């Protein structure tokens, strides 16, 4: 760019110089010719007029009668007529003024033009008739003063043209610099923009319309770039946030999966242990009845029974970490957070064919619930909805609101799908464990029974709206905590 910039200024100056180098010599020679011609014409005209007057003087006067008089007139021509040669030739005599330089000889023929013959003298020969006698007046006019004047004029003109050329170069240089300044400014700002700094505005002021329009266009482009850049930055930030969120979700999922694995193991162990403990307890009980009080065997078996009861407690403890329902602590909570988090967590698992919509009210009253179980509830309902739409496009809507027509203050959690819906006989059995409409291996049928169990544990109620082909909506109604209920103790364990 620097090379291009210097070329631009040089180009303008160079063009001006080139044009002048062509035009100025032509001008010089043209004007020089006119000057030379006019000086020469003036000289020739003056010489001829002077010669004519002198010839007339000889013809009408009595100068020819006396040699001294003739010589005076010829001297007069040298003195006043800028002549350097004056001679009168008669038949038998030649009279020449002695004032001119002696080394000049008049040619036989008169000069036809200025500077003819290379002798710096313009010769004129005039015939004279006086008193029946003919004679010739030969005059040689000095060309050198005129040549000097011509040369002087030409030199002055050369000087003027030289000065003009210098001025032209200076003006061209100034103008090209002035022209290249806004271009340079445009270039600097363009470079700044190219380096990634879009903040600098393109406020180039120039009187040149094209440059002004270019600057305006570039400024519009810069603003567009600033917008695009801002949008890109915003997208990058959003992407970073969403990636961080995804990482966090994946971490949560991994954590959940680990818990599930351990929980499954614990659940399996608990089930096996419970079955093992039943005969231990029962057989020990009956054996104790056969033994007399105070016997060693009785004391031993009482220790077996005590150990079995301890084992039973240990199993309960194992189960505690994976939420023993009876020990669940129900606490006042805002379901909006749980529902929002559950939906986000489920979104990470759901395939793109399922569109997930949320309709969560800005504010809902607090309800008594357990956060993890409430999350299980949302996840189970969402999973069920997703399975109802499996293999098809569908919309899953999760809503949370205060139902407008509820008898008691309450909060309604709604999970709706656009899946295949259900027949009435199916609806009546959906909350039973093992009940499933899916083929073997695609679900155990526990999901909705778990939902039911959780709903009951919260003291909430669940309703289903469905029809074949019309999708399914589950509505769970949580009793809202009223001011009087706040004072009450939390809900107790599930009554069996």
């Amino acid at each position, binding site marked *: 760019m620097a090379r291009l910039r210097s070329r631009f200024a040089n180009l303008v100056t160079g063009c001006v110089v080139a044009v002048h180098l062509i035009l100025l010599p032509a001008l010089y020679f043209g004007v020089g010719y006119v000057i030379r011609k006019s000086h020469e014409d003036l000289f020739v005209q003056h010489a001829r007029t002077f010669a004519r007057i002198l010839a007339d003087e000889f013809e009408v006067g009595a100068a020819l009668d006396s040699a001294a008089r003739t010589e005076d007139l010829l001297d007069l021509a040298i003195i006043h007529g800028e002549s350097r040669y004056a001679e009168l030739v008669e038949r038998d005599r030649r009279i020449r003024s002695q004032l001119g330089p002696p080394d000049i000889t008049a040619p036989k023929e008169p000069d036809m033009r200025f500077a003819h013959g290379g002798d710096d003298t313009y010769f004129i020969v005039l015939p004279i008739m006086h008193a029946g006698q003919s004679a010739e007046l030969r005059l040689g006019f000095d060309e050198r003063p005129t040549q000097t004047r011509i040369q002087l004029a030409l030199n002055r003109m050369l000087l003027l043209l030289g000065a003009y050329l210098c001025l032209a170069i200076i003006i061209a240089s100034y103008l090209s610099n002035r022209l290249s300044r806004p271009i340079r400014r445009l270039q600097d700002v363009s470079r700044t923009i190219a380096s990634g700094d879009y903040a600098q505005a393109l406020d180039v002021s120039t009187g040149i319309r094209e440059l002004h329009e270019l600057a305006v266009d570039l400024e519009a482009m810069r603003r567009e770039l600033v917008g695009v850049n801002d949008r890109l930055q915003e997208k990058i930030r959003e992407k970073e946030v969403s990636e961080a969120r995804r990482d966090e979700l994946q971490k949560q999922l991994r954590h959940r999966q680990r818990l*599930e694995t351990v*929980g499954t193991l614990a659940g399996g162990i608990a089930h096996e242990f419970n079955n093992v403990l039943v005969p*231990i307890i*029962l057989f020990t009980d009956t054996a104790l009845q056969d033994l007399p009080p105070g016997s060693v065997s009785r004391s031993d078996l009482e220790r077996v029974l005590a150990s079995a009861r301890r084992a039973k407690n240990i199993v309960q403890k194992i189960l505690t970490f994976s939420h023993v329902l009876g020990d669940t602590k129900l606490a006042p909570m805002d379901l909006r957070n749980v529902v929002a988090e559950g939906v986000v967590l489920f979104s990470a698992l759901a395939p793109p064919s399922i569109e997930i919509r949320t309709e969560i009210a800005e504010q809902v009253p607090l309800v008594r619930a357990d956060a993890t179980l409430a999350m299980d509830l949302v996840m189970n309902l969402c999973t069920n909805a997703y399975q109802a739409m499996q293999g098809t496009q569908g919309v899953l809507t999760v809503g949370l609101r205060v139902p407008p027509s509820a008898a008691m203050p309450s909060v309604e959690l709604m999970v709706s799908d656009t899946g295949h819906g259900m027949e009435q006989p199916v609806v009546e059995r959906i909350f*039973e464990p093992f009940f499933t409409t899916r083929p073997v291996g695609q679900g155990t049928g*526990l999901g909705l029974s778990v939902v039911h169990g959780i709903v*009951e544990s919260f003291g909430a109620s669940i309703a289903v709206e469905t029809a074949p082909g019309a999708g399914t909506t589950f509505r769970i109604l949580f009793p809202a905590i009223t001011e009087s209920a706040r004072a009450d103790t939390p809900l107790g364990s599930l009554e*069996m």
Partner: protein
Amino acid sequence: MHSILVIDDEADVRDGMKRVLDRAGFSVRIIDNATDALLELKREPADVVITDIIMPKLNGVDAIYRIVQEFPSVRIVAISGGGNFDPSSYQPAAITTTAYLLAAKKAGAHHILTKPFESAELIDAVERVIGAGHG
């Protein structure tokens, strides 16, 4: 003497229950699956059925439905120790136990009992359903 049919896929569990209930003065039959238990009830009715929930073939909840429909006079006690069948569909064990027993109750069980239980609890449960039935 009241007759009791015990259904459980675990031999030690059903034998233990038989021992306790025999001693308590009941006439006890044991069987290891619900399908055969329905045939057994047809062959010889029982006053009380004690059934596990999680069993291969026919599960306890479905068995209770069938018993309630086919033998309405039979009193039913459901027992469960929870557990999961499939690691991919894990649910907290206590919730499944609750869910199973709730479902059993909904299906028509007159009493439910969480494993493990003591002899006295078992006898008490049987006596309660018989008493309720007579009441």
